[in-house]
């Protein structure tokens, strides 16, 4: 039993080296901290690893046998390592001798923390331990229960696992995995890989993805906040994010909303750092994360794509980015996600959950009170969106006076409006079942916005 869970851990870790190597390669301006690179590397490593496996299966006909996964995990370590060597004339081998001093240094620094910082950290860890235990208990004891899990994400994973590949025969009742065929396969193929690693398709193993996404999000979020931000604000912001009730529920649900929210967060926050002068590496990381968001959920194409195009146009107009970098960034973005885009085109996949061939604008006025209630009044997000609204109203000048914060605010509001407009103003919103979940995808960004605003507004308030 314990061995099975260790195999799951191994299966998740196997993509980390290639991911770290990729981030190391992207970070040409040496702008990113080790913690940030460590966890974002894990994220993009997994995405790339699974996308390669998918491409090997659908374009080259390789069955999803363990060796295909191992080769995919290992091959790009050398590929990205070679490119790093071309740039730096050295290969970033892990130096294990540095590990213990690194840990010691951080433990030592803990002693110098302020009293409130220590209390906040203990509280964060304590509440996190309760949340993780609760979710872990559900995952290991309760079979797949939530609608989209047994109807789509897990069903497709099970079909692909049992057939050792994606069914491409139109006569197959589970053509393209069954369920909603347009759903990207990042999450499902990760579940196939976990089942392959353990040797059996069981809910208690494959549903661990929800908890993994939750913890990865928190780690990336914490390490994405800059060192010059008050440590107390960083800890409180991470606590705030970890405690969002709907996010906690999704840590035990086998859905992809948290996964997508990580890509969305990294894509938008990286542009924020780029504008704040943290270096061009963040600009390229933004494109990479945006590319993988398309591999995670259709919202990547429908929601994030227009925002990224608009941001690019504004950056060019403001001369914040050279044309060469703009071109290269979009080139690498398209190159990264090309296998999935080609597949989408070949198999004529819809852009939305259902039929997206028709798209009418209507005013679903009867949804308006419920959308407002979902975002502001129910417990889904605690008082997060009320605080965001209050900061935006009372400290608009402060936000507007900072270019990077202004960008973050506009991006957040644009995403919020686009998301909720689909529910309020199109005939694609059949009910309100997605209203809270789509706003959940923006929650990490909203907490980050709040943290930067609080730092800027109250930073001097001692």
């Amino acid at each position, binding site marked *: 039993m314990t061995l099975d869970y260790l195999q799951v851990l191994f299966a998740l870790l196997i993509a980390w080296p290639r991911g770290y190597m990729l981030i190391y390669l992207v970070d040409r301006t040496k702008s990113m901290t080790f913690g940030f690179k460590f966890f974002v590397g894990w994220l993009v490593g997994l995405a790339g690893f699974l996308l390669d496996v998918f491409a090997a299966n659908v374009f080259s006909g390789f069955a999803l046998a363990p060796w295909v996964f191992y080769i995919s995990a290992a091959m790009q370590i050398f590929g990205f390592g070679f490119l790093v060597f071309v740039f730096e004339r050295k290969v970033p081998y892990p130096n294990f001798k540095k590990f213990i001093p690194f840990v010691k240094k951080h433990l030592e620094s803990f002693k110098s923390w302020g009293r409130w910082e220590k209390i906040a950290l203990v509280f964060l860890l304590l509440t996190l331990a309760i949340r993780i235990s609760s979710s872990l208990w559900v995952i290991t004891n309760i079979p797949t229960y939530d609608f989209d899990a*047994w109807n789509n994400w897990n069903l497709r994973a099970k079909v692909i696992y049992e057939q050792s590949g994606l069914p491409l025969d139109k006569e197959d009742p589970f053509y393209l995995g069954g369920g909603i065929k347009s759903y990207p396969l990042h999450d499902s193929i990760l579940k196939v890989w976990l089942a392959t690693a353990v040797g059996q398709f069981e809910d208690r193993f494959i549903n661990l993805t929800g908890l993994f996404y939750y913890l990865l999000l928190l780690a990336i979020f914490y390490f994405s906040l800059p060192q010059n931000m008050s440590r107390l604000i960083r800890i409180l912001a991470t606590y705030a994010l970890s405690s969002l009730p709907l996010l906690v529920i999704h840590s035990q649900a086998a859905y992809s909303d948290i996964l997508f929210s990580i890509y969305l967060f990294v894509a938008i926050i990286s542009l924020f750092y780029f504008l704040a002068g943290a270096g061009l590496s963040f600009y390229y990381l933004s494109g990479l994360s945006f590319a993988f968001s398309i591999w995670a959920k259709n919202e990547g194409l429908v929601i994030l794509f227009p925002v990224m195009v608009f941001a690019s146009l504004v950056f060019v107009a403001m001369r914040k980015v050279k044309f060469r970098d703009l071109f290269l960034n979009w080139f690498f973005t398209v190159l990264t996600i090309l296998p999935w885009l080609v597949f989408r085109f070949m198999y004529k996949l819809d852009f939305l959950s259902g039929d997206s061939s028709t798209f009418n604008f209507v005013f679903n006025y009867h949804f308006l009170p419920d959308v407002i209630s979902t975002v502001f009044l129910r417990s889904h997000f605690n*008082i997060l969106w009320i605080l965001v609204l209050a900061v935006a109203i009372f400290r608009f000048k402060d936000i507007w006076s900072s270019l990077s914060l202004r960008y973050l605010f506009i991006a957040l509001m644009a995403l919020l409006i686009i998301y909720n407009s689909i529910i309020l103003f199109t005939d694609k919103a059949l009910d309100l079942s997605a209203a809270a979940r789509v706003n959940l995808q923006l929650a990490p960004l909203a907490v980050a916005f709040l943290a930067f605003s609080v730092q800027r507004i109250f930073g001097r308030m001692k």
Partner: protein
Amino acid sequence: MKSKIFLLAIIFLFSPVFVLAATEAEIFSQQYLQSSDYLNSGVEWGVYNNTETSLYKKDEGLLLRNDGDAYLVYPISFSYKDFDKLVITYSSDQPLDINIIPNVGSTAFSTYELRKKFPETNEVVQAEFSLRLPFFKSPTEDVGINFYSNRPSEVVIYDIKLVKNSPMETAGQFFRDYFNVSSYSPFTVNLLPTPRIFGYSAMIYFLPIVILLLLLLFLHPRKKIKKIALIILISFWVFTDLRMIYEFLSYNVQDYQSYVAPAEPDKTLRNYADFYQFSNLVRDNVPAGEEVNFYNFGSGHFPRILQYMIYPRIVKEGGQTGEYFAFYNFSDFSFNEEDNRIYRNDEPLTEAGEIIASLNDNSFIFKIK
């Protein structure tokens, strides 16, 4: 000054307004059903969705022989201005889910506040339901009480009362509602219903305080006041968080009690009763790759859940091809021992075969020979 405020608070709390006693009206008991008030009222209690529609005297109460999903319905008109609590005194030989359904004959909407689970006990139990909910804002047409049990149960109802709370009790209900947890349902992953107070999101009641704190935080000139406002806001966040942690842990407890701890035949999962046990039964008795003709009564989700649970077996909803048939909770189908066929009411559905596994009389797997 402080002592005066304290004194005023004490006087206010113990003023007649707050200590007014609760009033109540009995609407169901042996005595009440024989009283002239009831007999002359022109309306009467009815038993629905049950084989036996009569009630029998037993001890001091009335016995309901419950098939498992019986409804007691009473055409009574009242709003929460008249009564804001319903109390049922009963005993049962099976665990029960009791659900109060206002206007059961028309809209029949209900929420988690009106649904409660009670463990198996032959002791006399009092089940209390607050009616201070939007459903009861306008006078009702009727009220239904659903007694749900996984197996047939004998429920002895001693009395049912409608109670008008005192203001103090209503204030207490405010806090009870805040900490009242719901059950994990298929909607939970999309919408969290709790915490609610009197049927509305609790935030509605706290919003004025939150807005006041935000105004102090952003507009007050004194840093000390700003800091206090910030600390209270953070405390409010933490308090809401702790409330929701309590909610999530209660989901764990409910799952443990209904699904993890019980023996295999007694396991039920949330609102899908024993369907997951049935799915396991199908998976264990039908070879991989076979088609399963599936017939069910209940949730429209069942065919798709079954498909996920038993893949690589293929589910044919309402199909008639292939050797295997699975029937879940569907009393229309029965096995005829004379010709070994399955009949739907009086019409034969299958060729001759045998029942290869069963969960209960209405949930079984049949294989054509």
